[in-house]
């Protein structure tokens, strides 16, 4: 019974495919004027699929067809393979390949339906992970990194160790490795923090190390060092709050009380105390409340004043 049913389905699928193929391409051109969309959406999957795959059509038209195909590009094996071919074809226009990628990605959200196409999709992504088109490559590596794909992590790590082999800039590689705390990127991230090729790479290395309990001293050091850019020190505040949430109060308090502290850090400290502080302890901390009161009307930046106002709204109603 079961086998019979499957066979019937398969026959039906084949029939509909033939029908799609036999439709004349000329008539499939989707009109992009208002109102045409709904009609296109309603019954012309075949027309859209044909348009998306038709090399004779203009790129914009094909991109539009890919968008209108929506999550349904996997409903038919022929269309799915055609879209994978666009993605893999380095000679296709970049915009078209990116549109193919977006359509595929959108389809992945229908996880159950997509699962039958998933192995081939991942294979195609790996095939273009070293594509000459940087934008495409970067997007594809991101998708694979979020799958915690081992081969991608290896490529990214190799690129960080040997910049000549790098597929993406170091800051991107570090960011992508951050999707998997188990990626073993900590040694290379520590090295980049010590000897950064650029400030963005250092920032991403720090973000990556934020999940590494052993790196807490690195952040303590940056936070204490007022010569470090405010951005890194602000990041260190967040990281320390995450690694040791109970240390928040002490750190933030120190920054708020320190008149030589950077305004951004003081504002961040005020925000931390306002949002996550212990009501009882702070309300009772007269020295802190008084100082914040002075900050509200002081010479500090607008951010500090705003932070001070919110702090007082909460702790001195």
């Amino acid at each position, binding site marked *: 019974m079961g086998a019979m049913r499957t066979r019937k389905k398969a026959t039906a699928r084949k029939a509909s495919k033939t029908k799609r193929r036999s439709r004349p391409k000329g008539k499939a051109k989707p009109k992009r004027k208002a109102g045409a969309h709904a009609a296109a959406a309603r019954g012309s999957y075949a027309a859209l699929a044909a348009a998306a795959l038709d090399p004779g059509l203009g790129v914009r038209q094909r991109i539009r067809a890919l968008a209108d195909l929506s999550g349904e590009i996997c409903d038919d094996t022929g269309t799915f393979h055609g879209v994978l071919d666009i993605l893999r074809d380095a000679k296709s226009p970049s915009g078209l390949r990116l549109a193919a990628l977006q359509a595929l990605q*959108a389809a*992945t959200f229908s996880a159950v339906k997509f699962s039958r196409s998933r192995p081939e999709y991942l294979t195609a992504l790996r095939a273009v992970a070293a594509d000459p088109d940087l934008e495409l490559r970067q997007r594809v590596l991101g998708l694979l990194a979020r799958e915690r794909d081992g081969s991608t992590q290896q490529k990214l790590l190799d690129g960080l160790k040997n910049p000549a082999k790098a597929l993406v800039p170091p800051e991107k590689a570090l960011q992508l490795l951050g999707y998997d705390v188990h990626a073993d990127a900590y040694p290379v991230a520590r090295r980049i923090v010590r000897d950064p090729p650029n400030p963005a790479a250092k920032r991403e290395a720090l973000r990556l190390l934020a999940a590494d309990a052993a790196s807490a001293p690195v952040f303590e050091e940056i936070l204490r060092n007022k010569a470090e850019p405010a951005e890194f020190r602000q990041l260190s505040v967040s990281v320390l709050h995450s690694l040791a949430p109970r240390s928040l109060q002490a750190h933030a308090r120190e920054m708020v009380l320190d008149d030589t502290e950077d305004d951004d*850090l003081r504002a961040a400290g005020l925000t931390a105390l306002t949002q996550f502080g212990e009501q009882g302890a702070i309300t009772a901390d007269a020295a802190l409340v008084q100082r914040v009161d002075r900050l509200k009307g002081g010479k500090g930046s607008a951010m500090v004043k705003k932070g001070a106002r919110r702090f007082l709204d909460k702790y001195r109603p």
Partner: protein
Amino acid sequence: MQIELRINDSADPKARYVSWAPSPCSVRLSDPTGASQPVQVTLRQKPAATGGQVRFRDGPSASAKTSLSLTLPLAGAPVPFFLTGVFGRASVMDGDVTVEVRAGTQVLGSVPLMVRVRKDAAKLTAPERDRFVAALAKFNDRGAGGFAAFRAMHTDLTSPEAHGAPGFLPWHRAYLLDLERELQAIDSSVALPYWRFDRPAPALFTPAFLGRSDSNGTVHFASTNPLQFWVTDGVPGINRRPFFVTGTASANVITEAQTLALGNQYAQFLRMEGNPHGFAHTSFGGSISSIDTAAKDPLFFLLHANVDRLWAKWQRRFGRFDPALAASFANGPSRIGHNLPDTMWPWNGITGGQRPATAPGGDLAASSCVTAPGAKPKVRDMLDFQGAVAPHSQLGFDYDDVRFA
């Protein structure tokens, strides 16, 4: 003489929130001292130049009035009435509406309340924005908060419960509602804003709100924005790289009009899971663009609030609230969790078999304003969110631009 005014049939101040759908209320004489016969009272809103506006109704479908005259029995029996927010006049802060009960010129009592609805994120006032962001950050609590359950509910392994089948819209409606109620437990004036992805949203992608992305896709926040302390999976920060100019362009999606024109049958409308839904997700690089990591980015919830709003609009346009109506939902059996009578994971607590191995987060959060959908909602409970078919199925939220009737 004293009266007691109950909003949403409750004396709890946390229940003093109304939306476009009628909220059941009552007033009674709690202390009849000085009265010798039933007391004639008038209910009206205390005039205010700004803020929300409400109207009164005798019954759930009676016409809305600016004031209502009621007779309160001496024995203290409650007299029911209904309150609705005036469409287009939502509150901007907690308690910016005051309902007064007068006997002649004497004010017998009053309660502050709020017309609380989900609004366009790009149009929030600064305090509305700040309260939302603060509640979200608090719920995440630097990675150690209750948000972790929401993160665990939406992953690649749990996706079959929520995607690629008719339950897509109901599941996400429940998911958003659960989160919104958690946020309201932190700050009850908060409602989930939505991101209209088919329009530019310059006010949303800013350091003060959901952050500004740099060219690498790292999101930066103002030092006064508590989302700078956002942590998921033990990793701080958010990665999001828009492929469109957020200040002037929309995401690469079909428009609202096109979405609503997908068809008047649920099965047709469901195509929106691909475009605009999937395309909104994939108009970015970063976590939002992969199913397993999407819920790491707070933008996820604003994106989905708009997906849900589009469904609500479609329901309103075609009258698709009634689960008994074939066009309101997909017909024919679907996988478990995607049929009208099915309970939904993880709130049902069912694990193993066709369901995921664990059900993080437990029951769906309760509301102080409404009783539906209960701790273990079914797919069908998500359709009649305004109580248009059955008043008791009201879920307690509304969208600023989706009317009640």
